[in-house]
């Protein structure tokens, strides 16, 4: 593990990127979208809440690079702002999941039996609540909103991180240097912090990138069904929801090809490219890092799809 981390960050960096074009593509695409989202904080072509019915359903043009939606809002601005929402929600959810899950997993590995049992049962229990069910409960409690999505996805992330941390820390806890540390008088907490945590960090980061991309998707799903981000704020899932209602309001019998075209323009042209590309890049980045950072004997099947079978 030490070795692979060094290979990632040392002088051979240039060579390394050359050998992993996937990583470069994923990284660049992810950065690009992150940047796009960040820019929207200080500048968007138009204010995203600016409604102008006279200019609705416009096609791409110089004034509106991606056209306008059913309310005449500028699509490019919406996409920029929506990207930020998706990123922020997913990142906060990862932070919640890792912030609670990793300590739990470490505690399970460091203290052993009773704690382990408790942590594993707890994460089993949380697993029984898919993010959407949590979101439903939270919505019923507090009403819909982006915070909802963060809570729901974050809660769902906790057992994932707990499991990964516990599993990987367990394999390290049996190694000699941990025993040495124990001989030197370190307690379980110190062992967990000084020896286990640094050694499982790579896996946690990998899992984090994967959960980030899943979180983006989950946020889109929740917003799409109306449990996530609420207008006037926007997210990519919410945009798809708006676009679909447009497409069904204009049935083909009534508006003919125009409706199809309009609907198609509305979401396929704009959102498809954006969403698909963004998720792909996030996932690709996750996978690549996965390959470079992954320690050898670990076994996260979903996390590491490509393992050279040596």
């Amino acid at each position, binding site marked *: 593990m030490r070795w692979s981390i060094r290979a990632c960050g040392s002088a051979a960096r240039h060579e390394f990127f050359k050998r992993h074009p996937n990583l470069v593509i994923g990284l660049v695409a992810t950065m690009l979208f992150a940047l796009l989202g960040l820019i929207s904080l200080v500048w968007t072509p138009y204010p995203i809440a600016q409604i102008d019915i006279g200019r609705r359903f416009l096609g791409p043009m110089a004034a509106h690079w991606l056209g306008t939606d059913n309310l005449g809002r500028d699509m490019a601005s919406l996409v920029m702002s929506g990207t930020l929402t998706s990123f922020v929600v997913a990142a906060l959810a990862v932070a919640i999941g890792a912030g609670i899950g990793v300590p739990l997993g470490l505690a399970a590995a460091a203290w052993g039996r009773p704690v382990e049992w408790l942590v594993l049962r707890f994460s089993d229990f949380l697993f029984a609540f898919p993010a959407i069910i949590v979101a439903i409960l939270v919505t019923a409690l507090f009403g819909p909103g982006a915070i909802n999505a963060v809570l729901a996805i974050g809660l769902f992330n906790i057992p994932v991180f707990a499991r990964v941390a516990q599993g990987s820390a367990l394999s390290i806890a049996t190694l000699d240097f941990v025993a040495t540390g124990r001989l030197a008088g370190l307690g379980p907490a110190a062992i967990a912090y000084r020896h286990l945590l640094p050694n499982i960090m790579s896996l946690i980061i990998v899992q984090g990138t994967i959960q980030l991309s899943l979180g983006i998707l989950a946020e889109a799903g929740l917003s*799409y*069904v109306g449990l996530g981000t609420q207008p006037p704020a926007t997210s990519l899932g919410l945009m798809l929801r708006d676009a679909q209602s447009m497409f069904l309001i204009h049935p083909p019998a009534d508006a003919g090809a125009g409706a199809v075209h309009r609907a198609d323009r509305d979401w396929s042209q704009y959102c498809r490219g954006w969403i698909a590309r963004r998720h792909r890049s996030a996932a690709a980045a996750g996978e690549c890092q996965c390959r470079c950072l992954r320690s050898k004997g670990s076994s996260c099947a*979903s996390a590491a799809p490509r393992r050279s079978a040596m």
Partner: protein
Amino acid sequence: MILFALRRFLGFAATLLLAAVVIFYLLDLLPGDPARFTSGITATPEAVANLRAQMGLDAPAHERLLGWIAGMLRGDFGMSYTQRAPVAALLWERLAVTLPLTVMAMIISVVIGLPLGIVSARARGKAPDTAIMVLAQLGVAVPNFWFGMMLTLVFAVALRWLPPGGFTPRGENPWLSLRGLVLPSPALALPQASILARVMRTALVDVQGQDFIRTARAKGLTMGEAVWRHGVRNALLPVLTILGLQFAFLIAGTIIVENVFYLPGLGRLIFTAISERDLILVRGATVVLIVAVTATMFVVDLAYALVDPRLRERSTP
């Protein structure tokens, strides 16, 4: 094995009980009074109080919790006060849409995902492998509801082969009812099939490098035979786990995809219930979903132990 099953079953029951308690108390915290809702705005306070007593709402929370759980064990989920119907009947009616959809999606994802994963692993590093993995990556990245919209656009709006949404009850016309699920189920299955293909590939690639494959080869089997007879079976173990987990994702996916196709399933029921603040209904539907997820996990655990005897031993304390 029986002891193992028993222990797992206890865990399963405990999870459900705990989940029911959590859900009950969470929703009990909510403001809003069903009695007031039912009796309308103009009702006098006495009438509301009467109704509350009649509905059993004035009992302490833990008593109502016990009553609710005991009722569910008998199949009585209480009355929905917005729909004025027993919750159990409503849920059952909706499950008749959600369940076939989930099962169909599951079948599609297995039928597509597993063979692709096997092909990919056998051709590791070659063109078919790359092509399949790129496809799988795309499949994971595309949100299923978006894929559903695209399917509607192509097959319902442009080609008009299939209905864009809605659902005919099976009793009325089984053929039409099946047609209504033709578009939603692949939409639901796409991400699952992609994940399945990747997991299958990883597992098989792993297994291919194992000693017993070499032994099988030394025995005179061709590589194809060795992989088919010894590899695939061993590789199916992790796949089984993922399949179980996928059920949870499928249920989440159903709730969202039902919205794309306007299917009157469990998901739509929950959304109406939330917007109408029908907490008894929300409570019942959530419990049903959690039972489905937990029961699947339980069955997977058992199946796993049946297939792989090593696990049974390991789990003995």
